[in-house]
């Protein structure tokens, strides 16, 4: 009089397997999205290369992001600023991406860059404080000088912020009010 457990479970085995396959599928789906379709590296209206500017031509970050040390936002250069150099840099003028830039200038339109680094509105992040404290741009933004298309390497989440604040022993760095006011 023995009862086979596996025999008893047999009718349930197939739905269970199907469920497992589906769950694995979900993870695969998330991975595919994250790997091949992530928003960490959005396509920009102009194929602007930080590598060319910051590495090859050694332009300092704050030459273009002029507000970083005096404002919450680092600031994206105005179209006029871009054109300031690109009218002078002769050999670059015929490149297709620079022609796009010139197009924006001719139409007097701003360039709609896609935001890569963002924190929610309830976070009062300020570049000024971080820059003045000597935090290097790369610590949050990654090796920008090596990137052609800009990509986000840090999660920009609260634990990530707090970890750094803790590690550096920032004064009031773990106080809610420091960022949420």
């Amino acid at each position, binding site marked *: 009089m023995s009862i086979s457990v596996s025999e008893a479970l047999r009718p349930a085995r197939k739905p269970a397997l199907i469920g497992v396959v*589906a769950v694995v599928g979900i993870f*695969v789906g998330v991975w595919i999205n994250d790997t091949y379709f992530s928003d960490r590296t959005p396509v920009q209206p102009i194929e602007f290369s930080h590598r060319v500017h910051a590495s090859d031509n050694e332009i300092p970050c704050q030459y273009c992001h002029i507000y970083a040390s*005096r404002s919450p936002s680092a600031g994206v250069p105005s179209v006029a600023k871009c054109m300031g150099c690109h009218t002078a840099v002769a050999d670059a003028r015929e490149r297709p991406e620079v022609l796009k830039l010139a197009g924006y200038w001719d139409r007097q339109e701003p360039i709609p860059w896609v935001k890569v680094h963002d924190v929610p509105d309830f976070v009062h992040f300020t570049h000024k404080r971080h820059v003045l404290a000597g935090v290097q741009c790369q610590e949050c933004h990654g090796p920008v000088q090596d990137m052609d298309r800009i990509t986000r390497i840090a999660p920009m989440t609260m634990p990530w912020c707090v970890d750094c604040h803790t590690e550096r022993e920032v004064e009031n760095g773990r106080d809610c009010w420091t960022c949420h006011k």
Partner: protein
Amino acid sequence: MSKISRRDLLQYIGAGGVGTGAGYLFAEAIKRPVEFLIPPVVPPEDYSPGVATWYNTVCNQCSAGCGISVRTREGRAKKIEGNPAHPVNQGRLCARGQAGLNALYNPDRIRAPLKRVGERGDGAFETISWDEALTQVAGRLGRLKIEDRADRVQLLTGGIRGHLGELFEQFITLLGSDRYAQYDFTYPANLRLANRLSFGIEHLPYYDIANCDFLLSFGADYLGTWLSPVHFSLGYGQLRQGREQRGRCIQIEPRMSLSGANADEWIAAVPGSEGVLALGIARILVADGTYTGSDRDAWQRALEPYSGDRVAAATGVALERVQQLAAEFGSSKASLAIGGGAAAAGTNAVASLVAVNALNHLAGNLGQPGGIIFNSAPVFGSATRHAGLTQMTELAASMQDGAIEVLLLHDTNPIYAMPDAAGFADAMAAVPTIVAMSSFMDETTAMADLILPTDTYLEAWGDDAPEPGVGLPVASISQPVVARVYDTRSVGDIVLSLARRIGFELPVALPWANTKEFIKDAWKKLYTELDPQADAADFEEFWLAALQAGVWGRVEATGGPGDAPAPSTIPDIDAAAATFAGDTAEFPFILHPYLSATLFDGRGANLPWLQELPDQMTSVVYGSWIELNPATAGELGIRDGDLIEVESPAGSIRAPAYLFPAIEPGVVAMPFGQGHTAYGRYAQNRGVNPVQLVALQSDQQSGELAWAGTRVKLRNTGERARVVRNDGISRTLGRQILHPEENHA
């Protein structure tokens, strides 16, 4: 291991596929929405993105003239605060001042010049260019000037102070007309006249609430709406908590206002009897020897009729209370009596205010700390063209007679703020050309043929010398805090460009390219006039400093607390009884309208922040309501929220009942401010306008509209209406949260 059948395999693949798809979509769904970083095409010169810039300027939401600091970012105004350096409000601000942003960014602003295309009043307009609009107006005015008929041009503005008023004055005079009037519903004309009669000084003195020990207010809601509410609120705080000896406040009014609620005692005297009460107190002060002046006998004779019994009978205040008030008023070191609100808006308003002034004189507080301190006249531009009911009715008559060819309007809304019976709206129909210089399509602007949209006060240049002043010469420059939002112009610019286009001597006399230059020039003159030692070469520096500080004042100035002039009022002492329109039997209740601390006289009704701000006493938002005593309501079988028809000899309106315990049973109260038929989406068709109930009566001496002099009757329509309010219910429901004996179930 059993073999997997083909059918099973397909099922597994299907499950995997669906799972992967779901996973992909899930990951997609939790992504943050794409945001853009839009750089400017050309970098801004005057700000850094993300960094706030503060500009100091002047509040224009009422005539107190508080100084404000406006926080701007990326060229947009974000928040208004009080300017800490300004002596009127010392960094504080009232709700109306805060809501200035709603005026600037109001979606119902007039955005371009408009020309009427349909019938007058249909609201059909077409957009035209500024050039065309100005050419038309200038052409019309110029032709009248050539034909020597420019005296048929009437300019009607709101209560404009500062040099802008002088610009209007010069413009209209140069044009060849003398017709300039200012209609401002809240202008304290009765108080000014009373002060002239009592003291010979018309400009408003400084009421030193901060330092008085005993404040007796006859209807003046000094914490909400009276003259300079922010400044007086500061004074009140000082009186209560800022010093060793806490001062006492008594409020005399038939319906409890915010100031009444904050007083030590609230006394509901019979409406219109405030002057009698003041003289009753005055008689005791003279009789008991508190007053020791040489003309004591004359005072005694003049006050003879105000014996205790008569006063008690006329005011409904018990004899002992009157005696106590007199004793306290006489014995306090610094006592101060003020009058305002409905007490200053009856048919005997001026007489009542003169009586209140007499009280101050008899207590010996004129020119004393904690009393009435006489300001030197405002540095410039005190309004002198105020038109009361008498002048406005005359104007309406001239318009009817065809004596007015062109009516130029700016920032005034008589169609809303005057009873229909005054006939202003009808008279406008008889005027061939109406031009409105306005930011909003209010009831009066909507009747115009041509509308020239103006900047709001946050976009324009101007200046102001606050009145009542603060005991020393003070003035402020008003500067734009943001670039204009729409295709508007400042009213000063409009007047100047009209002058250029009209020609003749106008461009010579008014040579300034814009309002800024005009104001700057005026200040340059002042700079050397007021301070003979000043070097004109330093003016630029002075100008920038004054702009930056938002206020200019001479702290060391003499002549502030001037000598108290001897009142010349003994023969004028006569608290004539107030008369009320409407038969007592037919209209049993006295209507007590009051200025709303939020919507004010209705000018704030288009600002959504003010609409959604609960009234301080009733907590009602948005609509209109009529306050009546629960006892009155009980007699009439009226429940809270019943729709009541309120009828006066002048008109009738409907509003829901609000049972309010702090009101005299024979009085019903309604706030001004709602009931607009135009004025944008937030104001239009919301609530009712109690001005429509006000009968056409004026003060016997000043000719001002006696808006507190009307009787009404009530009829329960049987319908229910919703009063949106925040106060829940007024009963404790047996929760034992009050003192046991007072535990109303």
